[in-house]
């Protein structure tokens, strides 16, 4: 039997992460990688949908404090993530399954490492359950 490998969806801001490396190159290296124009563009419904459609975890990579190309997109996401942690907890979903990192990495080399680190933690938590039950397809 294959060991359990959590599915992690990584949304990353195009202005801070991996913009010097071709998308085709990075998307081969990083499974389930979704570059977005700004982390602030992410809606809570996208994150809910990711969990519904099979994600065990969601990692959001935004620009550093004060360095958002669109002024405050990363701050907007920070507020959403704060509230989402409370909402997810009510669904019985551990807040560690939704993580936000602010920083910058033009080559995108650290993205696989960040996903690996998160994956290590999620392996302890096991497959996602909503209110104690496996997610219905």
């Amino acid at each position, binding site marked *: 039997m294959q060991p359990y490998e959590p599915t992690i969806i990584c949304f990353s801001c195009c202005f801070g992460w991996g913009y010097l490396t071709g998308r085709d190159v990075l998307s081969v290296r990083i499974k389930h990688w979704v570059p977005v124009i700004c982390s602030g563009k992410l*809606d*809570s419904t996208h994150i*809910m*949908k990711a969990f*519904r459609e099979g994600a065990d975890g969601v990692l959001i990579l935004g620009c550093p404090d004060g360095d958002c190309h669109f002024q405050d997109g990363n701050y907007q996401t*920070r507020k959403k993530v*704060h509230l989402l942690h*409370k909402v997810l907890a009510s669904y019985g979903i551990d807040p560690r399954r939704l993580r936000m990192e602010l920083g910058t990495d033009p080559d995108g080399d650290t993205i696989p490492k960040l996903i690996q680190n998160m994956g290590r933690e999620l392996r302890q938590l096991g497959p996602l359950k909503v*209110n104690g039950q496996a997610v*219905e397809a």
Partner: protein
Amino acid sequence: MTKKPKVAIYWLGACGGCDEAIVDLNELLLDVASSVEIVLWPLAMDRKYDSIQRLPDRSIALSIIHGNVRNSEHEEMARLLRAKSELVLSFGSCACFGGSTGLANFCGRDSIFEWVYRESPTVENPKGETPKPKSTVDGHSVTLPEILDHVYALNQVIPVDYYLPGCPPPPDLIFHAITAVLEGKLPPRGAALAPQKALCESCPRNNTKPPRIDIKEIRRPHEVEVDSHVCFLVEGVICMGPATRGGCGETCLRINTPCRGCFGPVEGVEDAGAKFLSAFASLVRATTDEQVQSIMEKFHDPVGYLYRFTQPSSTLGKRTKSRGTV
């Protein structure tokens, strides 16, 4: 004499408020009643379920069903009415989205039973009895509908043709819906018989809203007296208007009460709670984790606010019910 179209009005897991809303059609109800043959309406008439069972399939022109599906009897009646009806109108927030009792899905049936029948300090139940679908009393076998493990919206159990949201739906939309059915002037199946835009579009307070709202403190309605023309969100009071379908007649706003979201999400949105979460977060003036924490800690019971009417139809809460499962 031409045959009048048959109409059934039925409640599932409901409070009865939707029936009251139909009665609130007042004199118009007499016009409706004279144009149709009401074959089932437990609130107003004494008809037995077997009279419905005897009808040919699809012989009822319209079944107006309100309430969610919470027990085996609700499911049985929903399936029976679906089979006998040409059109099914999912009526009210409980039928459309699961409604406020759908919040029970955050706890689960067993823990609710445990609290209600055993742990609650006001309960005296030394034998620890709980309701059971079948019991024997004095040698007689008695049955009760079985509580399901989940609260379902109507369309998660049977196919639904039209939706009319609201807690309860307002009389003008009810009348328009019934008239549209009788006159055959219906939109494509699956549509909500209500406006498509958000409540803020028609809110009378929208005119005084500043270009940018900056919430520095979240306040509950009893903590601040909001002027009757001022947007609640400007005052830091949580109002679900930005993510809620309009059409309710702004009745809550007119009595100086913020929107609670009973009309559910706007057209094209599945998860009203998540959508409002995004809208609301963008209005909060905070950048650092500490600021976010300090303002948001006054957002008490977020899921209670966000999913007050829509948990069973939310992205993570939705489930479909197949026949024979609990």
